[in-house]
């Protein structure tokens, strides 16, 4: 997930579409919250005027704001309208929020990932709101024959300062919508913010506590059939034959046919069963007898993968990223002492509680799809590519995701649903079972990180090398040959920009270990595996130098005031320097990802019967300006628990071509009782916003295991590990 920077050109492209879709009417539109897939689509209610693409206002002053960022729990239904409403001068309690549907007029921002929503939309959506406000003020000034400078906006009204007259936005919108959209509207000074920076409630929460919220799996379309697919249990196997005639006779079954699950690098064949109800489809699937051809894939194993990656990491230097400084090898030769360590992190499943699903209807060369997705733009691309139809023929209904963590930006399941619906000639809801979700991936790639450091005679660190070794997401998806090349996306929390430890001779390298196991970004992507190695090794270096791990970091980060500030707040909030009782310890780690710096201090204590338990976790996070502090806290709490999952619970393993973990009994998630008290402290800042959906995750595991080392003397370098056994 690249960090998408907004250019002025992109904003103008978005904003200049405004004014092109004007419709004038007068009747009011009802409140529409994300209650049904049909209203989520945003059927344009009669009487709404598009002031610009993201704002609809009725004559009776009902205001609808469009959220271009699909909701997966990260709070975009609050944060995106907050950006518009702040500049538009309306309160969030008086607006209705709708999701955009991938139409070009809503621009490039219609995706979520890379912790980008607030970062990427911060300026464009504020400008949308500010431009609309200026248009409304101009329209009022014109009507009053007054100077625009004497008018101001407040609470969905324009007021004339000298006379005290006022007009509602509803009374002005028809006139305002005929004006040119200002290209560079004046934005508010952050000190005047009324909405941004406040912990305001998320508008869709009430629908999520009474069953009213519609997730992808809840979509219902008239005449809809249900589908399930038996994919080849061996990843990438081919279909030879199956007992179509027999299964076709089972109750409720309408169709049994071969279907393709397309992935960027390969395709998987499977058998689709389409029936009147989902249970009938599942029962019929159990009766399938299928012959597969697994040639070439029956040997895939994660054990081999890790063994090969370890060998490469031991034997090869690998290509350096272009931020190397000094001469690492020469410095190692002069070093008085060197330290080396190899860290391993497992393959991981996203395992959102809502499994993959999509509902599709294909009529001729037109497709309509209801899908929980991180990117309607991606769905349009993928469906149009696989069906050979223009993108505008693909109508996407963006539905709430029941969790995603990266998974629902990979549209294998969506295209599969479309292919099934096309062949069935009816609307079809495809639901993957939990087992389908868990064994098919794609997964976070397992990684090997090999580090080496050296000290001079005074005990000062002078050499540092970090070799990232494993699969390349980019390489697999783009089918690249990365032998001798770095994966430019893989170095987050490792390169100098995101790990600015001042060591005079430093190199960062990438060593490619390709795999046929499908891989994908998983919350915080490579940062989730890199930072465990990076920050554990910083700790190992500190202990080798006989320095306190906090002091060691503070010394190497002297030139980085934001990092120093985060660490100092962390020390203060945890009373870090206090002597702790025997068997109790505090570990820290810090990492910068998605333009945010996050640190954790984890306190552990030894159990009487062996192992350790986590007593408390405290985070300090500097993400620049904040739209909603409560959302920052919620995301950071979630990141701690997802980090616990990847560090302490089993990973995904492959043996003889098959994933061995099939459901939550073999891939358990942390439970409520395993969750320690978590505190989140946000650094006050006027800097540009960083991300928040992911940056809290990477430093959690190293902080935990740095604490474990202090409590037990055991250095954990291979994950997962059971805390009861350390």
């Amino acid at each position, binding site marked *: 997930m690249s960090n998408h920077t907004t250019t002025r050109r992109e904003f103008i492209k978005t904003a200049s579409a405004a004014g092109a879709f004007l419709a004038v009417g007068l009747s009011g539109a009802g409140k529409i919250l994300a209650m049904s897939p049909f209203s989520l689509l945003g059927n344009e209610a009669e009487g709404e005027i598009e002031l610009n693409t993201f704002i609809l206002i009725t004559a009776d002053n009902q205001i609808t704001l469009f959220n271009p960022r699909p909701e997966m729990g990260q709070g975009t239904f609050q944060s995106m309208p907050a950006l518009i409403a702040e500049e538009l001068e309306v309160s969030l309690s008086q607006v209705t929020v709708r999701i955009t549907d991938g139409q070009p007029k809503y621009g490039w921002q219609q995706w979520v990932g890379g912790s980008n929503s607030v970062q990427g939309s911060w300026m464009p959506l504020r400008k949308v709101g500010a431009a609309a406000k200026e248009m409304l003020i101009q329209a009022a000034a014109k009507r009053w024959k007054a100077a625009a400078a004497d008018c101001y906006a407040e609470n969905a009204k324009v007021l004339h300062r000298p006379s005290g007259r006022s007009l509602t936005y509803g009374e002005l919108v028809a006139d305002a919508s005929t004006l040119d959209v200002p290209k560079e509207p004046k934005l508010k000074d952050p000190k005047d913010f009324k909405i941004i920076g406040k912990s305001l409630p998320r508008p869709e929460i009430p629908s999520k*506590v009474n*069953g009213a919220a519609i997730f992808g799996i809840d979509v219902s379309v008239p005449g809809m059939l249900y589908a399930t697919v038996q994919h080849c249990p061996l990843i990438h196997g081919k279909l030879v034959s199956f007992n179509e005639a027999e299964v076709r006779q089972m109750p409720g079954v309408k169709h049994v046919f071969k279907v393709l699950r397309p992935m960027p690098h390969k395709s998987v064949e499977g058998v689709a069963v389409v029936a009147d109800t989902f249970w009938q489809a599942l029962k019929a699937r159990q009766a399938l007898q299928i012959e597969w051809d697994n040639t070439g894939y029956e040997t895939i194993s994660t054990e081999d993968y890790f063994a090969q990656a370890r060998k490469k990491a031991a034997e090869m230097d690998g290509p350096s990223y272009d931020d190397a400084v000094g001469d690492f090898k020469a410095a190692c030769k002069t070093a008085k002492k060197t330290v080396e360590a190899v860290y391993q992190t497992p393959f991981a499943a996203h395992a959102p509680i809502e499994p993959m699903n999509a509902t599709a209807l294909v009529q001729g060369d037109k497709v309509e799809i209801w899908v929980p997705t991180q990117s309607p733009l991606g769905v349009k691309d993928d469906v149009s590519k696989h069906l050979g139809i223009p993108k505008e023929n693909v109508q996407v209904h963006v539905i*709430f995701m029941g969790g995603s963590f990266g998974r629902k930006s990979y549209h294998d399941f969506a295209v599969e649903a479309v292919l099934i619906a096309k062949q069935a000639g009816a609307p079809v809801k495809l639901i993957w079972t939990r087992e389908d979700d868990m064994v098919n991936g794609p997964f976070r790639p397992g990684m090997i990180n090999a580090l080496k450091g050296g000290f001079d005679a005074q005990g000062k660190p002078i050499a540092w090398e970090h070799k990232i070794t494993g699969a390349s997401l980019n390489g697999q998806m783009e089918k690249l040959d990365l032998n001798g090349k770095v994966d430019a996306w893989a170095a987050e929390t490792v390169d100098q920009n995101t790990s600015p430890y001042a060591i005079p001779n430093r190199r960062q390298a990438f060593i490619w270990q390709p795999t046929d196991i499908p891989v994908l970004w998983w919350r915080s992507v490579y940062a989730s595996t890199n930072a465990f190695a990076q920050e554990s090794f910083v700790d190992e270096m500190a202990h080798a130098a006989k320095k306190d791990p906090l002091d060691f970091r503070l010394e190497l980060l002297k030139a980085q005031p934001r990092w120093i500030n985060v660490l100092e707040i962390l020390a203060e909030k945890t009373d870090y320097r206090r002597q702790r009782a025997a068997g109790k310890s505090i570990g820290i780690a810090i990492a910068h990802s998605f333009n945010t710096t996050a640190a954790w201090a984890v306190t552990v204590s030894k159990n009487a019967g062996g192992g350790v338990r986590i007593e408390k976790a405290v985070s300090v996070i500097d993400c620049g300006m904040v739209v909603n502090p409560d959302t920052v806290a919620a995301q950071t709490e979630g990141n701690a628990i997802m980090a616990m999952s990847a560090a302490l619970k089993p990973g995904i393993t492959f043996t003889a071509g098959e994933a061995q973990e099939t459901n939550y009994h073999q891939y358990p998630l942390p439970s409520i009782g395993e969750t320690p008290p978590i505190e989140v402290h946000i650094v006050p800042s006027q800097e540009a916003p960083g991300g928040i959906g992911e940056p809290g995750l990477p430093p959690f595991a190293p902080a935990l295991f740095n604490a474990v080392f202090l409590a037990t003397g055991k250095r954990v370098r291979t994950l997962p590990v059971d805390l009861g056994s350390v």
Partner: protein
Amino acid sequence: MAKYTLTINEKPYTVEAAPDTPLLWVIRDLAGLTGTKYGCGIALCGACTVHLNGQPVRSCMMPVSSVRASQKITTVEGLSEDNSHALQQAWIEEQVPQCGYCQSGMLMSAAALLRAKPSPTDEDIDSALAANLCRCGTYPRVKRAIHRAAENMKK
């Protein structure tokens, strides 16, 4: 296929289904109440939790043929549709849900807990909700909201 009469949220539903159809799919696809979720299909994740005569059960592994018309099924929609239940209010006040998908099951397990133990301890909550999984990591807020609801119910 057989005909079954079920009482869901105090309303009668007559459905036709194979006897082994899990109650979950009957509630969702035949009764049209989609608040109850599918997560794992083997009673591990708790997303499908409903009440049967007030007791929390995993509807994904309970065949429809085992449920009698006299037994009262309560789903999340039956807690209240207007969010007036103390737990729903506490859930909103604490802004518990993230994606929200597991929350129906959380709420149903929490409702059964509060009926049995109006003043639950942290340990009671950990035990009653041990098999309600949340991938977003809302657990700290779930715990706070249950305590808040317990307090509010006493007022």
